[in-house]
């Protein structure tokens, strides 16, 4: 008799594939939000499993802040090319110019918040009714209460009190015109689950996820990659360090961690040893206030 036992990664994978296919079945114009980070790279692999040998029933959409790591951008373009899937890129830079928005200034300047503008514009431009994203519930306490199908009003706003109860494996994607749904297929994965899956699936990642030498600024005890985009103060010290990135977002708000992990086993070992949570170690944007994520989600962030 065949052994009928599903490993936890198989179970998480099966759930994520089921969610992606519900998106394909329920929506007219879905999109997959792709950032070049490991979570969205995982989503792409799950989409391959869900829809091959067919094509993806959605394009990959990247909201480019213009402050991304060049390695992530290169990876993005090569991946879309290799898969033969459609990639749509919209730039925060253009939104800033066209809408005459003011660039955030100062020590914590980041285009992270402006990303929401461009995202909402892009949703409107293409009429996307569902956007698949790689957010996980273990990342942050506001995300712990997020639904897998998260209904947003026409301003993209998340209202925790208006969320629909989600029962069994039944996802209610019915929306009124103008509304859209954010869909999170890897809601139930943890950081470690994602890494173990990347290892099992032998997925190549942008090399900034592994150790490399880099010039960094020390800011509030965190190592920020030195770049032309980062706000500098006269007394800032630039140091060369062996680092890797635990998350890959905008260069202005993503910190590096000191690391000697040159392969995936090294990364997994470091995560198991780590005493600091993923976002706690790497995200400047969450540190601005205790409810930073809750507030941003209410404003249309995903």
């Amino acid at each position, binding site marked *: 008799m065949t052994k009928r036992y599903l490993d936890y990664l198989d179970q998480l994978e099966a759930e994520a594939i089921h969610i992606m*296919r519900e998106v394909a079945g329920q929506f007219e114009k879905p999109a997959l939000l792709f950032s070049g980070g490991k979570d969205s790279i995982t989503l792409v692999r799950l989409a391959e499993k869900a829809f091959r040998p067919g094509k993806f029933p959605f394009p990959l959409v990247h909201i480019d802040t213009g402050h991304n790591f060049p390695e992530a951008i290169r990876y993005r373009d090569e991946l879309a090319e290799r898969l033969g899937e459609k990639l749509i890129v919209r730039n925060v830079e253009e939104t800033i110019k066209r809408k005459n928005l003011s660039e955030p200034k100062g020590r914590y300047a980041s285009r992270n918040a402006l990303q929401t503008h461009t995202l909402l514009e892009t949703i409107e431009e293409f009429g996307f009714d569902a956007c698949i994203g790689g957010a996980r519930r273990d990342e942050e306490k506001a995300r712990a*209460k997020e639904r897998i199908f998260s209904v947003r009003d026409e301003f993209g706003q998340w209202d925790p009190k208006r969320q629909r109860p989600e029962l069994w494996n039944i996802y209610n994607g019915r929306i009124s015109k103008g509304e859209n749904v954010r869909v999170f297929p890897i809601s139930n994965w943890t950081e470690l689950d994602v890494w173990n899956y990347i290892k099992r699936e032998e997925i190549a990642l942008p090399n900034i996820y592994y150790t490399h030498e880099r010039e960094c600024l020390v800011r509030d005890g965190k190592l920020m990659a030195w770049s032309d985009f980062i706000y500098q103060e006269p007394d800032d010290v630039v140091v060369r360090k062996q680092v890797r990135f635990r998350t890959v977002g905008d260069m202005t708000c993503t910190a590096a961690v000191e690391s000697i992990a040159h392969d995936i086993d090294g990364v997994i070992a470091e995560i198991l040893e780590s005493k600091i949570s993923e976002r706690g170690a790497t995200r400047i944007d969450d540190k601005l206030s205790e409810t930073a994520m809750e507030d941003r989600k209410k404003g249309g962030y995903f």
Partner: protein
Amino acid sequence: MDILRFITAGNVDDGKSTLIGRLLYDTKQIFADQLEAIESSGRVNEDGQVDLSLLTDGLKAEREQGITIDVAYKYFSTEKRKFIIADAPGHIQYTRNMVTGASNSNLSIILVDARKGVQEQTRRHSIISSLLGIPHLVICINKMDLVGYDEQVYNQIVEDYKQFAQKLNAKDITFIPVSALKGDNIVEGSELTMPWYQGPSLLEHLEQVPVSQDFNLENSRFPVQYVIRPLTAEHHDYRGYAGKVISGTYKAGDKVTVQPSGQTTTVKSVELGGKVLEEAFASMSVVLQLQDEVDISRGDVIVKAADGLEVAQEFEAEVCWMHNKALKPGAKLLLRHNSTETRCVVRHINYKIDINTLDHLEDVDQVQLNDICRVQIKTAAPLLLDKYADNRSNGGFILVDETSFATVGAGMVAEIEY
């Protein structure tokens, strides 16, 4: 390593948050920055320890009001298992949240305050767990430290609970005396404080509860979510039916029927991501290719021909109402069952279930938010249903408002009229 999904129900006073905090803390799932955030909030217990209940606190809106408004999900893992906790608030007005959290859980942890014994809330949480078909119940008799770790107190509560539990459908009930605050029998045992207790700690129990047989491998159900048609030179005639095996098993050569049309054919292959699999079984997402060209679209269900199944349009169900606007007989709603959506009418409300006693309240003319009732439903399209008690994954459905599209009810099929 597999996954156990469990629900914790209770309110702040039961020490539910402390229990979850203790599980996370003692299994080293709490990161330094999260602990720091709690320490900086300045809340410590009388013995100077960090208040672990704060680890499960959620949104600003909730903290301001000191309440939990929703189900929060927490994760931890040991070498044996990954655990997904649905943390639901326990007040009566949050029945809908508990029902939501329970729908995906294999196990329910019910907290009893050792000083108070079996309370209305204990009964309510047990009844909801039972109605939602959760196979494993764990009754944690908490705050044993406050009753001097007295075995008599524990035994009395176990007796009282067993008396009450006769009316439940629960297959497996386990009792554990604990102190979430002190950590007795949560992760470690209680040799020093409760040498009279020989059973496992809560974590040991969670690690060893067998969950694989909770999957139904008898009744094969494959609702089609999406049809894969590449239309490329290489895959010119390829038609793959993408879906999840919600129960049973499928392999090449199986004779199958497509419902509701009733056409029969044979499984040509079982695949995932372009690779052929020997067999697919409950909870796997796969692609089925069929031998003959049959007309199949989203919402159709591929079943084993030998099962001789029929579709139905009329059935009775238990419904938990989840909306402020009351449900009245004659209400027209959308009904979503797996990947099918159809209109339906609630023809009659048979009775309301008292969720503290399981008593039936007859002559009900409307159903309010958080009520659970037995109703008769007729659908516009035929559905392939199972009784919830027979096949949990094919017996649940949701009700959706026709204009706001809010999810307004959760239903469990009880009787089917063919």
